[in-house]
């Protein structure tokens, strides 16, 4: 159980958005294989602080795979070498003693680097702001059970709604496309009667914003689905395409 490993870390460091970045190499030793990847990063940072150096900045918060904040590109894969998990759920038992681990930030024109491994993902908020909601105000809504919703539709909507907005789909896609993220929201709301009303308008507005913000287009490579920690299906992308085409063809 209590195995420990030594590692070489090749990490992207960049002081600020406009500065030039570079890779730096660090050594960490006696890392318990029971620790999480981010705990390993904590240990490295503690080491750096003790050497009076600036620790490595990386995003994280809940550390249980739900907030979508953690976002490291580890050994060539967003969220690293394990399936259906976020960076914070990755554990060191997935690595071998003596291994070199390369850690990079998400790379996309729409996600500029803020510092080291932290990128700015506000583009996602802007996309949601442009239409990713049901237009109801607080109060004055019908009883929750007034509209029955078929269980399969509700379940599929929930599948789509599990998206944590981490951006791994964009990071994994060779086109830096945000289609999986956008489709998850469009699909969730299109599947529910409450959201259906505005489905076309929503698809149109969200796609327009997505395009404006500099994400690439979808070429159906499917990398997003493989790397998505919540296994959001690209079938949702087809639904988004459908809603979008419907909206545009009905004009």
């Amino acid at each position: 159980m209590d195995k420990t490993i030594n590692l070489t870390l090749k990490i992207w460091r960049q002081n600020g958005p406009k500065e030039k970045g570079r890779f730096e190499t660090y050594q960490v030793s006696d890392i318990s294989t029971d620790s999480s990847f981010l705990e390993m990063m904590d240990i490295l940072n503690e080491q750096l602080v003790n050497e009076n150096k600036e620790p490595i900045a990386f995003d994280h918060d809940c550390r249980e795979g739900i907030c979508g904040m953690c976002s490291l590109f580890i050994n060539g894969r967003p969220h690293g070498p394990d399936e259906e998990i976020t960076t914070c759920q990755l554990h060191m038992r997935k690595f071998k003693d003596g291994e070199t681990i390369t850690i990079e930030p998400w790379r996309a024109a729409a996600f500029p680097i803020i510092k080291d491994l932290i990128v700015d993902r506000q583009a996602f908020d802007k996309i949601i702001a442009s239409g990713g909601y049901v237009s109801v105000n607080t109060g004055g809504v019908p009883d929750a059970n007034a509209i029955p919703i078929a269980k399969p539709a509700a379940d599929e909507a929930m599948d789509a709604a599990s998206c944590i907005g981490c951006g791994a789909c964009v990071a994994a896609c060779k086109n830096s496309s945000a289609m999986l993220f956008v489709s998850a929201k469009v699909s969730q709301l299109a599947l529910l009667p409450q959201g259906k009303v505005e489905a076309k308008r929503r698809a149109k507005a969200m796609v327009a914003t997505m395009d404006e913000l500099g994400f690439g287009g979808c070429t159906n490579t499917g990398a997003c689905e493989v790397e998505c920690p919540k296994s959001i299906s690209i079938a949702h992308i087809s639904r988004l395409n459908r809603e979008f085409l419907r909206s545009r063809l009905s004009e």
Partner: protein
Amino acid sequence: MSILNSKIPEGPLAQKWTNYKNHQKLVNPANKRKLDVIVVGTGLAGGAAAASLGEMGFNVKNFTIQDSPRRAHSIAAQGGINAAKNYPNDGDSVYRLFYDTIKGGDYRAREANVHRLAEVSNSIIDQCVAQGVPFAREYGGLLDNRSFGGAQVSRTFYARGQTGQQLLLGAYQALMRQVNKGSVTMHTRTELVDIVIVDGKARGIITRDLVTGELQRHFGHAVVLATGGYGNTFFLSTNAMGSNGSAAVKAFHKGAMFANPCMAQIHPTCIPVHGEFQSKLTLMSESLRNDGRIWVPAKKEDAQAIREGKLKPTDIKEEDRDYYLERRYPAFGNLVPRDVASRAAKERCDAGFGVGTGLAVYLDFKSSIERLGKDVIEARYGNLFQMYEKIVDDNPYETPMMIYPAIHYTMGGIWVDYELQTNIPGLFAAGEANFSDHGANRLGASALMQGLADGYFVLPYTIQNYLADEIRTPRMDTNAKEFVEAEKSVKDRFEKLLNIKGNRSVDSIHKELGLIMWDFVGMARNEKGLKEAIKKIEAVKKEFWTNVRIPGNKEGMNVELEKASRLADFLEIADLMARDGLNREESCGGHFREEYQTGEGEALRQDDKFAYVSCWEYRGEKEEPKLNKEELVYENVQMLQRNYK
């Protein structure tokens, strides 16, 4: 005591909220645009409040330390949200939800607040469904409910194991709609670092931009704090890494009362601590207790053998297992409230029956799997089992889970009256940040309910009662001396922190504080320990202020500086928690004083002496805080000894 007027409306309990709404002052639409409201926090409470106030036409400024409002800590809530809908027709009602919450809180909450909470609970579900929250449904297409945390009715609505996420995304989407319309301005990666008081009223805040390091001044006719709980005082907790108590401490320093700081909830089902490097504790949803049975070996030598790796849990025969909750509490069994279950686990481990590192008990699904089949268990808890396996590398379908209690929620917080206003006019507090509705112990699935109740249905009303008198107050120039002074003091504080240039990292000091808290202000407290804790906290505080090392400077992003600033505030809270715990010479809910227990080891309240809310008042750095009391008047419910046997 005029400073502590709880402003509970007149009339019978069930009519109070209606009466209040019927008579409160409102702001007319044309004036709303002229009023600025600052909402700090974008969790369930803050997000819902900001969205609702924006919809009403107020000019809202919303702040969060995360990079997106969607990432507030509320996102992590798993189990569900309560409401008195009575859809399953099992006898639930507003009164019953009210009563259960009061009783669950061990009779230390305000009746009127809790009743209002139960009243608006149903509207929350309606609202969320209208927003497109995909709650679990039955085949007939109607909403599904489950029973949670030992309630005798099924009143918990849920969205798989991600209820908090779905509710927060609903609020977030409503909020982003307002951002799009321009009624809410969003400030992400921005931290409140001080509150500005002008002529006795809250008029604004000072913030630090976490990306540029810049300090900014913001004016508001009112300020709402919805900044969550302070569980991270313990370093290890189920809270997100960024959860902090800083806003509460800023309010405290400006004169707001801090209520019941010692009341912290320890959740019984978390993955146990397994190493020094550990950064946080992961909650395993309470719903697991519906089908899992908790046990430890009945023989000490078996427990010892397991700890040494000589025996496996599956080697222990049925008759050699001690299902201690079922043994002690036959009526509720594994479903007793959190405080009771946590203490029972500690009792067994302290007695030498713990497994794993010695601080763990088993949560076993074997009999449920035999009874219901693996498929059913997988459908119910698949994601939790997967999460457990990823962390611990053990398969809970085959070997029992190991769990241990961990700090989870803080019932205490900023004191507010019925209107959610603190004793500083214009300063409001909502969600986990305030103290109001859970008394000494919060029931499962009630925090989400309270956060959304405050944000959607309470604050948008009550804040108008205050703002109606502010329509003639023009927007203030933030160059006013109060703002300038506040900003200067913040700047000085950051410089002071950076200039300590000591030898210890922030985390190493925080871990030290956490251990003290866990040992002396944790699950079981006593006079001697609490006195010692106060001294030890003082020493850590000194160590911090003389020996912390923060690399980098105040310009640009500096994560260590953020953490240091928050730790400085946790140190204040730690002190308050210990003091409050020492003062409260009784056991109630999450606060267990070893001196006050029944012969069977159950919590023993002292209603004649402590049926009050402890409200701590700041009196300067050198002075000890002063205790004020808000007496709790129970007109409808009789205070009883809780009994789960």
